[in-house]
């Protein structure tokens, strides 16, 4: 019993550390990649190739003065950054990062917890992320924040439907909700669900970008209109928490995308964990690429796109998949 708890704790700590580092270096990656895309160099002072830049940023943020404006709602103002940060971390509780492996004689599973409703858990947790933004925007008592918060919550609620529906196709085909089982079903590249659910994947990735408030759907923090949106009034560590939350979320949805559509940690030659990280960072690259390429949507365009394009497509995808499975089963098993 104690052993199990100990191993689990170690796993949790490891995952959290990797995650936080991942977040930090995601920022570095973003700056670097963007710079290259724009024919700039990017951070290059701190350390070789600017590799220590994230650490320098962290130190700066930690030691900065924590400015709290006068007319904030104290409780929620304090809670909001944490709320936005925690779900991102929690998501990884059910994401399998590796196959089972043996370390120091202990058989260790490649996931913190294999819930049989894994995907539902992911959705339950990510759906809570909106609170951070909402409360942060509201409690700061600033117009920009409020508008940012409102926009982002409306956006997240709108896209959450399509987001959820987009993976239903995968679930129907896989006939399971467990993330581990999902990965196991995609042992070879040919069995990746991306081939069976191309539309589902496109929908998923589009919604994921919107869910994480990333460009081109980054209206809640549109600098040109709202200064910095919901975190306008935040500074120092609180700001950092929001920031980590955002990148954490990006990593989370990327991890889920990799798991659902690209076989998770499955891959030849390299250790599973590496495969997993490669896939995740491919998606991170995609995010940055999108940011560098696409202009920002207008708010009404965003809402229209969500409700009038993505949502019907998601329903259609579900319907077609369902019919397909039904029909197929009839054909194969003889009605």
């Amino acid at each position, binding site marked *: 019993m104690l052993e199990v708890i100990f191993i689990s704790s170690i796993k949790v700590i490891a995952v959290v550390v990797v995650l936080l580092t991942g977040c930090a270096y995601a920022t570095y990656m973003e700056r670097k990649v963007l710079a290259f895309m724009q024919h700039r160099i990017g951070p290059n002072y701190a350390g070789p190739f600017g590799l220590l830049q994230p650490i320098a940023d962290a130190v700066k943020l930690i030691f900065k003065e924590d400015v709290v404006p006068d007319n904030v709602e104290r409780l929620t103002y304090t809670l909001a950054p944490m709320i936005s940060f925690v779900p991102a971390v929690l998501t990884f509780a059910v994401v399998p990062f590796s196959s089972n492996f043996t370390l120091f004689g202990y058989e260790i599973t490649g996931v913190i917890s294999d819930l049989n409703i894994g995907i539902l858990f992911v959705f339950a947790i990510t759906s809570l992320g909106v609170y951070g933004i909402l409360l942060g925007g509201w409690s700061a008592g600033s117009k920009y924040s409020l508008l940012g918060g409102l926009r982002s919550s409306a956006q997240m609620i709108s896209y959450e439907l399509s987001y959820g529906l987009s993976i239903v196709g995968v679930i129907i085909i896989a006939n399971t909700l467990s993330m581990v089982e999902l990965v196991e079903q995609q042992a070879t590249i040919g069995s990746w669900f991306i081939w069976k659910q191309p539309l589902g994947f496109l929908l998923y990735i589009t919604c994921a970008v919107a869910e994480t408030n990333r460009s081109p759907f980054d209206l809640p923090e549109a600098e040109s209109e709202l200064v910095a949106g919901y975190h306008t009034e935040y500074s120092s560590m609180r700001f950092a928490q929001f920031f980590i939350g955002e990148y954490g979320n990006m990593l989370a949805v990327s991890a889920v995308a990799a798991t659902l559509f690209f076989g998770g940690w499955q891959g030849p030659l390299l250790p599973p964990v590496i495969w997993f990280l490669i896939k995740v960072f491919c998606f991170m690259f995609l995010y940055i690429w999108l940011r560098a390429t696409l202009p920002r949507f207008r708010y009404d365009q965003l809402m229209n796109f969500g409700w009038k394009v993505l949502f019907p497509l998601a329903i259609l995808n579900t319907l077609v998949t369902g019919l397909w499975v039904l029909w197929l089963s*009839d054909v194969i098993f003889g009605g």
Partner: protein
Amino acid sequence: MTDYVSTLSVDLSLLGPELVLLVAASLILIFIPFRKMNYLAPVIAVVGFIVSFYLAMGQWSEHSSGFAGLLTCDSFGVMFKLIFLLASFLSLLIAHRYFSVKGINRPEFYALLMFSTMGMMVMANTVDLVVMFLGLEIMSIPLYVMAAFNRRSLESNEAGIKYFIMGAFASAFLMMGIAFVYGAAETTDFRRIVADFSYIVANYKVYLYAGAALILVGFGFKIAAVPFHTWVPDVYQGAPTPVTAFFSVAPKAAGFAVMLRIFLYGFEGMEILSDVFWVLAVLTMTVGNVLALRQDNVKRMLAYSSISHAGYIMISLVVGGPEAISSAIFYLVAYTFFNLGAFAVITILETRSGCKSDFVELAGISKANPYLAAVLALFMFALSGFPPTVGFFGKFYIFSAAVKSGFIWLVVIGVMNSFVSVYYYLRVIKTSYMDAHEGQPAVVKMVPSIFLVLVITALGTLGLGFFPQKLLELSQSAIFAFL
């Protein structure tokens, strides 16, 4: 996998009337973006109601159930389907003119009306508590919106929110009650509850009784039984008048349909219920009547009067047995006619500018609109139970069922209440016929839709009063399900 397919094959013909309404409502919704075609909405609704009515009549002799027994199609349910359709149809006709005058003639209203009616049909056509609950919600949610339909009127807004809060509150009670019944009986299907009743009572009596009590509270709110009636006057006064007309009849009928099923079929074995209903019925009648006495607004007065009418119908819940059930059905049909008629008159009077249906505004209408005043008087006499209107016969039938079972004192209280009610109903007639008024009374423009409503309701009120035989037979055969 194949199992799913085989169990999915269900007989949709049992759902015919409901589906027609659903399709018609959806059609209306689809047409909304095409603004020029919005005038079609009432037409579609009318056609939908008529087709649905026709289909429902076809189900009369059909006694079957579908969807794993959750949908029951019996004459009792069909009877109520017809009542709901009639009430909705008439309300729709009433509404059209009023909404045009008030500038809120939006096609969504007709869709909501049809959805609500569909919910009622679902409620009445099942013996499963959970399905009843869902039907109730499908009925109620459009009602909340309809109450607030006049978005620019503060009264209407208030009516909407008050009705909503009370309705949701009642739903919570209902759901808790259903949970307890489920806990006691392991099912929410009344056929099974009835079959195992003695076993359940022997083992889980307390759960079952607590569940029944909570359900009673929930439906008490819905049918506005005292002491759960406090929302009624405000909602009735604030909501747009055609909506009030609808409220006062259809949801009430639906509530009674379900209560009759639950308490006279499902929980028939609970003796204590009779006593509880006895008290509730007396309270409902009396409080409704006494408070109605001192109202200055006709809509509000009619609100209280509808409470007291619920009290009369509750007598049948006290009494139980086939006579009482058929008398309740009869009364609900009758009530549909004369109450909707009364509201139709009030509605058309309200199309005069600045009219809020206060009593004083009725003064002099007998001069300007003699026929309207006469019809209003007819409905008032029916409400107060004067022969030869059907109002009298309905009360007579209910009271006779009660006397038959020996509830003489209940009947005495009932007739005394109906005696009290005479005072305020006659006040309407008094104001319209006898009170002096200043200046030239405004002549109300009659429109075909309201004219049709008035003709139907007046003929129903008088015709059924003279010749109730046919309806009696219908309502007596409608209780087949209980036997």
